[in-house]
């Protein structure tokens, strides 16, 4: 169809509304949130774009099946608080999901407005964020009615999005919940991994406080497998069931020479120092982190983007992402790649690190790299990067961040009897119910799927909660 043949729309089309953002040059040097969200007018305008489709494809793209057209039409009608309750029926952490979900590849990719060709889907994620923030600011203290306690109690290992979602779903059905967390702060990757400028800690804390007000009990500094095992929780503490949501917290390294030099970090360490331990406030806060001048990041996912953007904010003059494939294959959320580019992160694509070069003192001074090109597609359907013979070059740097993924932490599986794991060490669990090989034990989130997304972890928490409730006969 050519331009001319296309029927003219009856009324002028409203374009997808942009979110206000901090100026890239300014924000590259502070830790305040980058995206500032919609104001009431923008939200109203954006909500009016939704067609309230009879067959809402968007919902099929949402792993927790939020009633998208319903909540959007409530925004349109001015009932923002109602919209927030609608959201929370399915998503207990909407302020978080509204910020970090890969909406463009989930709900928004299925939106009918998108299908109509122009690629401008309704900004579902931005509306979700607006609604949940509005409710948090305006509806303080309003709690849903809780049913009578059932006398049942469930132990949750890990306070990431999977564990928190399960806790929320169970407490609302009168099941007592205790969450055990190894770190001193609750939230899992949401607080130690994802940086403040993308997901402010205060927001995670407010969502958790809501759960606490509902009666969820939290125990921090509590490493399951060391203080007590999962079997102890079931037998000694008499929990009726246990949910394992320990995440994918063991950093992978490339196993190339020089990886233990000073200045070489796993993304987890780098981000934990900066985020959880607030190294960007050093020396007001005690934990230091190497403030590199020239920083190289290995990897192309959200974790790599977060590391690179954190390095900029810590004062690096040059930050380079080294990735084996091309821009098209970057696994990170497109919005974050876009933000990184705006802020000045460089991309060295089709490049694989071979060795980290060091000096006598033990500090890294550079990375030896190999040029790659794309060959035939591999099992994942992506074209496989293959080395270009003899094409090596060095990048000078003082800090290297390895962001190539995480594996399962073996602590809980290795201390739990009869819990089946697969060859990568992930816990084997039914994806529909979260049931594991062990009686009364459910599992979900990254510990089952390997490193995935917040919303999938939440989906797993929700499914496990439903399955537990069914088992309990509630």
């Amino acid at each position, binding site marked *: 169809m050519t331009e001319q043949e296309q029927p003219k729309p009856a009324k002028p089309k409203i374009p997808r509304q942009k979110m206000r953002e901090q100026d890239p040059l300014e924000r590259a040097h502070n830790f305040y949130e980058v995206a500032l969200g919609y104001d009431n007018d923008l939200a109203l305008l954006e909500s009016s774009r939704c067609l309230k489709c009879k067959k809402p494809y968007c919902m099929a793209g949402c792993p927790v099946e939020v009633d998208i057209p319903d909540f959007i039409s409530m925004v349109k009608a001015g009932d923002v608080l109602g919209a927030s309750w609608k959201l929370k029926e399915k998503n207990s952490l909407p302020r978080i999901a509204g910020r970090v979900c890969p909406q463009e590849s989930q709900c928004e990719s299925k939106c009918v407005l998108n299908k109509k060709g122009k690629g401008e889907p309704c900004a579902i994620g931005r509306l979700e964020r607006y609604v949940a923030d509005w409710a948090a600011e305006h509806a303080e203290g309003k709690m849903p009615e809780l049913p009578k306690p059932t006398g049942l109690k469930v132990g949750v290992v890990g306070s990431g999005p999977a564990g928190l979602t399960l806790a929320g779903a169970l407490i609302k059905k009168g099941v007592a919940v205790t969450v055990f967390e190894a770190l001193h702060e609750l939230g899992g990757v949401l607080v*130690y991994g994802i940086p403040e400028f993308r997901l402010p800690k205060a927001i995670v804390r407010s969502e958790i406080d809501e759960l606490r007000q509902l009666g969820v009990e939290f125990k*921090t500094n509590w*490493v399951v497998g*060391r203080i007590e095992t999962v079997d102890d929780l079931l037998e000694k503490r008499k929990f009726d069931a246990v949910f394992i949501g320990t995440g994918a917290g*063991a950093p992978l390294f490339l196993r190339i020479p020089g990886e233990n030099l*000073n200045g070489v970090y796993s993304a987890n360490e780098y981000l*934990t120092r900066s985020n959880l331990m607030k190294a960007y406030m050093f020396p*007001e806060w005690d934990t230091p982190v190497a403030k590199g001048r020239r920083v190289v990041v290995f990897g192309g996912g959200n974790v790599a983007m977060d590391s690179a953007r954190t390095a900029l904010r810590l004062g690096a003059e040059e930050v380079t992402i080294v990735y084996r494939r091309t821009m098209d294959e970057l696994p990170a959320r497109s919005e974050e790649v876009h933000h990184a580019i705006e802020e000045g992160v460089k991309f060295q694509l089709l490049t694989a690190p071979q060795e980290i070069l060091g000096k006598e003192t033990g500090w890294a001074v550079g990375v030896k790299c190999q040029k790659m090109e794309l060959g035939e597609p591999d099992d994942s359907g992506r074209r496989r990067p293959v080395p270009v013979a003899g094409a090596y070059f060095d990048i000078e740097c003082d800090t290297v961040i390895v962001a190539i993924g995480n594996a399962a932490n073996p602590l809980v599986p290795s201390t739990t009897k009869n819990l089946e794991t697969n060859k990568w060490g992930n816990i084997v669990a039914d994806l529909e119910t979260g049931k594991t090989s062990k009686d009364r034990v459910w599992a979900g989130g990254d510990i089952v799927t390997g490193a995935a997304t917040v919303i999938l972890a939440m989906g797993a928490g929700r499914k496990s909660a439903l399955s537990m409730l069914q088992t309990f006969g509630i």
Partner: protein
Amino acid sequence: MFEILAKERIGPGVNRAVISAPDIARAHKPGQFIILRTQENGERIPLTVADKDAEKGTITLVWQEVGVTTYYMGTMCPGDKLQDLCGPLGKPTHIEKFGTVVGVGGGIGVAPLYPITKGMHDAGNHVITILGARTEGLLIMTDDMKKVSDETLIATDDGSFGIHGFVTQVLQGLIDKGTKIDLCAAIGPVPMMRAVVKVTKAANIPTVVSLNPIMVDGTGMCGACRVEVGGKTMFGCVDGPEFDGFEVDFDLLMKRLAMYKGPELIALNKFRETPRGCECEIPGGTS
């Protein structure tokens, strides 16, 4: 919050405190450590559990003042509380009846050596401990150690107490005398552990060392505590902290321990200018 029930200075810049931590006291086994944070903006630092009383629900920590956190802890008083105490962490020491076990402790390393020695002694081993320090005033916990050892040998670099010399010389002396040693456990400054391993390796005596890499989470999540053992990268917090001394790359460990020298000095200077904590003690004082 974890209350400090008792605290005393047991040497220059060395403190011992008994802290209320019932869950940890119940679960702790020799060789394990905790990670603590003194206050909200504090750093997470690892310390070995030097002793415990499961019934009273207390653990004992012994620490040397080297930087902000340990200096600050030096100013804390009974009644003060630590913000966080996470543990027990790390693999427990493998304890069984080996025969004759020699424990070598240097400086502050005597504290972490104590529960291991006690465990080995309780398991029926003949335990010989060799304790060393630069000078008499720096020796700690010698009486505690004597109680859990069959023989205790003490050496000081300057000869101010016990044998004049290094712990390695004393160890070599035992070997030369023909003492049959089935296992050696060495804890102390990295150069000391390296020197001990040199001696035991030559005599083919299996040796475990307890490593003290810089840590953040202590649960295997961050990889800060990387050490090379037998050419392989291991995580000190979950694979250790004890390792086969013959296989450890001590040079790498020393370099990694120096990684934050610059920032640590900045932090310490700032702390000295505006000390936090109780005013009854001067931070960094040696009284």
